[in-house]
């Protein structure tokens, strides 16, 4: 038994809270509330269902939301840069409730035991069917990052997820990590696997902002027009604008990305006005993988979009932000990650325009929604060939292991510790990814769990000699990716996780002056001195090295018990009053 005494008491308390301590009427009231959890009042003329960034999580899991998600510039103290109690207050969510658990990190281990795992495509499928049946005519949209994030998606090059998405009834998607399987694989999937087969319909792969590097020609379909309950609806796709910068460019060498407001505005105007005798769209939606802060800026500059259904930054935002622009206003949403949420946007259309809306971001509680049998069978089938490898128990964790947060997470710390030890390095870097599931104290760490943190197509570990000046430049460069005051200059990931080296960070300072007081073993880092730095996920072409899962797997097998890691996070300055931290 590897539970600490405190954790054990927490488990007991959670058990008490769910049963013994409650009187019978309160208990049945809670049960009745649970039964109505997914009943949405009927509203409007059409419904858009949206999920995003599921990162190939076919099975229910835990995912701890961040306790540090700082807003900078205009984003300070506004959604999505609110965490914990600040988020609950902003959206009027009562502490201790199911929603409080889904949307925040608060009291995570206890609440996770109480409310159970979230997501999973079998449960999601049942919820999609219910919301399709209950509401007005409906479209199901996937914001991308669906084909990456698990062992089975990596080993099947996304085929498991394409099969599940087809069965789920996804009608259109956009993309980011999908591109890391390489341009050829994406083209093959779009041309064949997303279309046809035994199931009716197909998945439209939409990306208005992907062009060829030579002539700027469009690579994918930019939008699709569908009629829902007599209303022409346009869905425009926006892939992650910085894919060839955040991820290896050599995997898609002939494609150029970018935000491309100009083309987007042209397309919005084009779909609104109609073409070739076809009526113009009365509802225009951007299915976006920009990240929420980019979407908020874009909504203020590009006109004619009714709603931006957003992803990438993994922000579970309970209500849309309304953004005014020169010709109206645009709803901006972000629907979280890792299969936790299904968003339902109901739109009322009067006189050819959207006149009103209702939005709900529904956490998919696996114990409130029965699994869809057909989807459950499909998932079992795709997992069957890999079962033994996935199920290998590497170690047991005594502490809570999570990733999400601007500066570090405990699972990243385990990866950093493993790299420094296995590579005999003084310093380690691990990318600031926002995907990766959460394990509770006492959980076994399976190989599948490790792959949930590491399953990428460029998993190589490296050992590099760098001088102090280079290390400082890298940290400054990465930091600017999420604290640049202008959202268009942000890439949407988090700060690189750093092992061994301590530092202070001032997110409000200008680039070059944000990373301060860097120390190794208490001694200041020297600009001209060389240090051994371990890392993984190199974006350069031709990189090689032991895959990170082999290195960390070896480390975990040897340790057997993983004590709660000592989290190396920088001291922050200039952030007093920032509600993006607790």
């Amino acid at each position, binding site marked *: 038994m590897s539970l600490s005494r405190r954790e054990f008491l927490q488990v007991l308390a959670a058990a008490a809270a769910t049963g013994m301590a409650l009187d019978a009427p309160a208990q049945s009231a809670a049960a009745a509330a649970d039964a109505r959890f997914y009943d949405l009042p009927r509203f409007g003329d059409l419904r858009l269902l949206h999920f995003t960034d599921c990162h190939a999580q076919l099975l229910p899991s835990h995912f701890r939301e961040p306790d540090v998600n700082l807003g900078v510039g205009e984003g300070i103290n506004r959604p999505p840069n609110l965490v914990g109690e600040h988020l609950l207050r902003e959206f009027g969510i009562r502490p201790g409730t199911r929603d409080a658990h889904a949307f925040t990190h608060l009291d995570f281990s206890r609440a996770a035991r109480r409310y159970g795992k979230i997501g999973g495509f079998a449960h999601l499928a049942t919820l999609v069917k219910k919301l399709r049946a209950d509401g007005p005519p409906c479209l199901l949209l996937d914001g991308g990052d669906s084909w990456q994030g698990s062992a089975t998606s990596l080993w099947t090059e996304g085929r498991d997820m394409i099969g599940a998405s087809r069965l789920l009834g996804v009608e259109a998607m956009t993309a980011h990590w999908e591109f890391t399987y390489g341009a050829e694989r994406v083209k093959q999937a779009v041309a064949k696997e997303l279309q046809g087969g035994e199931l009716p319909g197909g998945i439209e792969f939409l990306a208005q902002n992907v062009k060829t590097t030579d002539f*700027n020609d469009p690579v994918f379909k930019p939008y699709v027009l569908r009629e829902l309950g007599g209303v022409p609806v346009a869905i425009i796709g926006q892939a992650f604008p910085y894919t060839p*910068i955040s991820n290896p460019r050599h995997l898609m060498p002939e494609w150029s990305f970018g935000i*491309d*407001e100009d083309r987007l505005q042209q397309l919005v105007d084009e779909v609104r006005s109609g073409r070739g005798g076809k009526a113009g769209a009365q509802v225009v939606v951007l299915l976006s993988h920009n990240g929420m802060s980019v979407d908020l800026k874009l909504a203020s500059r590009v006109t004619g979009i009714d709603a931006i259904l957003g992803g990438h930054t993994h922000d579970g935002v309970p209500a849309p932000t309304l953004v005014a622009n020169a010709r109206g206003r645009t709803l901006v949403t972000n629907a979280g990650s890792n299969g936790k949420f299904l968003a339902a946007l109901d739109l009322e259309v009067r006189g050819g325009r959207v006149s009103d809306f209702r939005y709900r971001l529904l956490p998919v509680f696996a114990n409130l929604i029965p699994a869809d049998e057909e989807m459950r069978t499909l998932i079992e089938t795709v997992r069957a060939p890999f079962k033994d490898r996935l199920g290998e128990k590497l170690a047991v964790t005594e502490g809570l292991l999570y990733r999400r947060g601007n500066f570090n997470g405990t699972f990243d710390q385990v990866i950093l510790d493993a790299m420094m030890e296995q590579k005999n390095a003084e310093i380690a870097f691990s990318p600031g*990814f926002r995907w990766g599931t959460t394990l509770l104290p006492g959980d076994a760490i399976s190989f599948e769990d490790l792959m949930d943190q590491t399953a990428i197509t460029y998993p190589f570990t490296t050992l590099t000699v760098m001088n102090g000046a280079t290390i400082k430049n890298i940290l400054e460069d990465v930091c*600017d990716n999420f604290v640049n005051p202008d959202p268009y*200059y942000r*890439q949407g990931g988090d700060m690189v996780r750093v092992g061994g080296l301590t530092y202070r960070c001032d997110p409000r300072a200008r680039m070059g002056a944000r990373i301060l007081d860097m120390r190794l073993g208490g001694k200041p880092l020297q600009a001209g001195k060389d240090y051994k730095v371990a890392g993984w*996920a*190199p974006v350069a072409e031709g990189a090689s090295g032991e895959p990170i899962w082999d290195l960390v797997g070896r480390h975990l097998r040897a340790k057997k018990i993983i004590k709660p890691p000592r989290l190396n996070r920088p001291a922050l300055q200039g952030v007093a009053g920032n509600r993006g931290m607790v």
Partner: protein
Amino acid sequence: MNSVRREVLKAGGGVTVMALAVSAGLLRPEEALAQAAWNKAAFETRSFADTVKALGGAAAVENPGVRFASPTPEIAENGALVPVTVTSSIPKTESIAILVEKNPNTLAANFVVPNGTEPFISTRVKMGQTSDIYALVKADGRYYYAKKEIKVTIGGCGG
């Protein structure tokens, strides 16, 4: 059409393509060859102000009529080939120059816009590091500009 155009250009080397383009009437020979008076001094300047001066202008003013258009990026995918497109809606636009402030030499290109031509230029510049770039327009003898930061980053660590 587009894929045909790409294949043609891939198939032909630079010289052949140039010849084809000339023979197809896409470029007039004098345009392909002619070198307008080379302003050596301007291309050796090291700051925005010096470049404006070397081009024969006085104080330039920022003007929304000068605009960086798509696909000019915020963050370069490749610093060696940064696409830059500039448009000007200022009447009597005579020339459009591109300046990269932190490059060893600031002036990257200067395009003469003949009377009656749409003031739209699109090219690629090389950038060694994150820098402000300027689009400098000469119109009716006066100078106007737009400014934009383009980040050149080490990449990775996103998402």
